[in-house]
């Protein structure tokens, strides 16, 4: 009897004796898998939708990534791995991309996934009648005629996407876009089943009607309570999927969620604000911290109707220099965040953080320089500047604002009035430039520096500072088609540091409590695009 057969017999005998082994071992790592492969996690709030072209929130997108599969997925590090697409080819100037689709991919009702399903989905996204909040994504992708179709000036058939045959998808772009394939991991580009949508209308996403092509099917949804998804037998890679069932529970209160996590009801939950240091002591194996593609900053009103003193660059620089970011991250927040001197986080793919001058100084040097600039601008402790800082109502924002106002007061003698506003009121105030200094946060839409730096373009709808600098605009426009845009990004960051329309404060960190039996959480995927099909639970 040869050894491997013997081993197999032995292990199967063992499997009969011990239920823990019945589920088998992980095919790659060889770890013993747990019997119950149910992954349960907490979400803060009810998701907006599970329709790929409609969903607009993070927790909804997480569900959609389990239910549907686009051309490409991301691996644990955020690299592209084939999804429905097997590979792609592109022409020399990178304006035409041809994707070869996987012939074995099927929808949950057995229908093959075809190029036509992608054409339908992308046209649906661009169609004004769909009224998708992510309609603008067709322009981010640079699809030919995207803008005209979105505006309703052209029929959807004119959009730059067509099916050559069932398994060949051809995409035509307005201009060269070297990173186009990366944009296809976004949920709004996932295929949609035309027949189901036509049959059930807006009810097609209900568990009894939905047709999906991802690793999981939607089996139960109770609004504001739970959503359950279970293995899709039709999924092409079902044999390599380990987690059988995924349950997301809506728990608004993060402290209650932590209690339930400790009681073993959850496999993953967020660490409540302020509890990171103590949990790191008590449960070091479960605390998981990782950088995220998000920046926390203060935006300064530099629009035409801004007060005169804010138009003085010396005042803006002084305000920025006087903030001790290390105190904010290490003493105030204590959640693994990192101090920010540039807008774009270091975690961004292909981005090298430029050493903008003030980031290289010590805090004492920054404070000295700030005092100097402030007095040059005509303000000191005997003639103090009065500033109003607004933030949206939240304990965390309040803590940061209090710390910053103390730093400004102590170093520069600035009198700060703190004002908190309810979320939508706040957005309105900030969006209409009825403020002096306002809190802001931004998370990247995709893993490339332009998702941040585009915010300081004069035409950007997100540029609440109303910063306008022709040179910045030009550098960013040129960066779009460059193979290596880093030099332009460096220059833009340096110009932000010089003009200081925004004050970067810190880069976010994600922090979770993850049970030790849940494996393969993609901590290195800075966009946190995770797929339940890549997770597994080991027997303990």
């Amino acid at each position, binding site marked *: 009897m040869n050894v491997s057969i013997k081993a197999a017999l032995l292990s199967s005998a063992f499997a009969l004796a011990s239920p823990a082994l019945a589920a088998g071992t992980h095919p790659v790592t060889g770890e013993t898998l747990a019997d119950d492969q149910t992954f349960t996690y907490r979400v803060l709030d*009810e*998701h*907006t*939708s*599970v*329709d790929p072209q*409609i969903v607009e929130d993070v927790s909804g997108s997480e569900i959609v990534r389990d239910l549907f599969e686009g051309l490409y997925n991301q691996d644990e590090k955020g690299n592209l791995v084939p999804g429905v697409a097997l590979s792609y080819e592109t022409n020399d100037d990178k304006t035409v991309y041809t994707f070869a689709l996987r012939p074995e991919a099927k929808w949950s009702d057995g229908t093959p996934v075809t190029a036509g399903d992608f054409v339908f989905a992308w046209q649906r996204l661009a169609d*004004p*009648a*769909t*009224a*998708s*909040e992510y*309609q*603008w994504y067709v322009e981010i992708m640079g699809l030919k005629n995207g803008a005209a179709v*979105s*505006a309703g000036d052209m029929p959807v058939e004119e959009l730059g996407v067509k099916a050559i045959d069932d398994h060949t998808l051809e995409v035509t772009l307005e201009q060269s876009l070297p990173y186009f394939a990366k944009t296809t991991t976004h949920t709004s580009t996932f295929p949609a089943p035309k027949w189901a949508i036509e049959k059930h209308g*807006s009810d097609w*996403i*209900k568990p009894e009607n939905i047709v999906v092509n991802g690793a999981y099917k939607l089996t139960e949804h*109770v*609004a*504001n*309570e*739970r959503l359950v998804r279970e293995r899709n037998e039709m999924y092409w890679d079902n044999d390599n999927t380990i987690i059988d069932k995924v349950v997301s*529970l*809506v*728990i*608004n*209160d993060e*402290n*209650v969620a932590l*209690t*339930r996590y*400790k*009681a073993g*009801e959850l496999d993953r939950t967020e660490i409540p604000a302020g509890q990171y240091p103590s949990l790191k002591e008590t449960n070091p194996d479960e605390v998981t911290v990782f950088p995220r593609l998000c920046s926390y900053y203060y935006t300064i009103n530099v629009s035409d109707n801004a007060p005169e003193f804010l138009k003085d660059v010396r005042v803006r620089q002084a305000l920025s220099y006087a903030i001790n970011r290390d105190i904010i991250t290490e003493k105030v927040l204590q959640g693994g965040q990192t101090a920010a001197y540039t807008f774009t986080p270091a975690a961004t793919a292909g981005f090298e953080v430029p050493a903008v001058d003030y980031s290289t100084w010590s805090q004492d040097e920054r404070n000295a320089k700030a005092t100097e600039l402030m007095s040059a601008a005509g303000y000191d402790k005997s003639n103090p500047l009065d500033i109003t800082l607004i933030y949206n109502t939240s304990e965390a924002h309040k803590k940061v604002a209090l710390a910053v106002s103390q730093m400004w007061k102590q170093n520069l003698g600035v009198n700060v009035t703190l004002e908190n506003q*309810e*979320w*939508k*009121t706040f*957005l*309105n*105030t900030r*969006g209409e430039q009825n403020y002096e200094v306002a809190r802001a*946060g*931004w998370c990247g839409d995709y893993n490339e520096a332009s998702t941040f730096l585009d915010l300081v373009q004069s035409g950007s*709808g*997100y540029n609440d500072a109303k910063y306008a600098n022709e040179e910045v605009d030009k550098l960013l426009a040129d960066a779009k088609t460059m193979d290596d845009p880093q030099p332009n990004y460096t220059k833009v960051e340096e110009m932000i540091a010089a003009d200081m329309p925004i004050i970067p404060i810190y880069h976010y960190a994600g922090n979770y409590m993850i049970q030790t039996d849940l494996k393969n959480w993609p901590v290195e995927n800075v966009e946190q695009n995770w797929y339940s099909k890549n997770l597994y639970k080991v027997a303990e």
Partner: protein
Amino acid sequence: MLNFIIRRVAVAIPTLIILLIASFWLMQTAPGGPFTSERPLPPQVLANIEAKYGLDQPILKQLWDYVIGIITQFDFGPSYKYKDRSVNDIIAQGFPVTLTYGIISFVIAIVVGGILGMSAAIRQNSMLDYFAVGVTIGAQVLPNFVMAPILILIFTLWLGWLPGGGWNGGQWQYLVMPVIALSTSYMASIARLTRSSMLEVLRSNFIRTARAKGLPDRTIIWRHALKPSLLPVISYLGPAFVGMVTGSFIIDSIFGTGGIGYFYVNSAFNRDYAVMMGLTILLGSMTIMFNMVVDILYAWIDPKIRL
């Protein structure tokens, strides 16, 4: 009596209409809209969405269409935030949940509170009385947003007896903690109200007369004292019931039960106009209805009150 009911219904309709218009107007004047977000939508995208939901129409037209939709098709409109669902879906799913734990809490609050209050009054200044007063004061000062997480800590984490939240179709294990958290302070109020009004009644002349006649205690309490001492309690029950059925924001957000309380409060933050209007109408009609029921009960108990 019939006349009274007809009159009350006739008043209820204009009240509802005023409520509807007032809340519609208040909502529209609040800054921001349903699609205001951290990432402002490009104007073109916003225009598509507003066209889809009819938000590009003049305000009066929107209100008119909304009212007509309700009257002709019983359609309370779409949710702008939870796009997979209409307001009807949200009510159909959330309201039974809220109603279930609301009614159970209500019944428990009345039964436990009533018995506690009555026994305390009958045996005034006994150990039982001190106990009842102590417990009710304690229960009243402990708000449910404090009690709920403590319950979860005790019953889920330490004892492991009950699931820490969720609904699961309303199985009893999932009901225990929400019901305790919701009913306790009402129970305490009812107990205190019952106790003080019972004490007052027991000291009144007609009870003294009954005792002088030599009636047994049981007859005095059940036949003569109970009804009049319930009057102040009943006037409290209307608002209490509505409070339990609507005041479930805390319960929903801490226990993740999926009731309408959470949707209601959040719809205001989200400027989810139709959800807010739909729930306002629902809860408004319930408030009106229960106040009416209380008035009828009142008249039944105390014939002195003319309807």
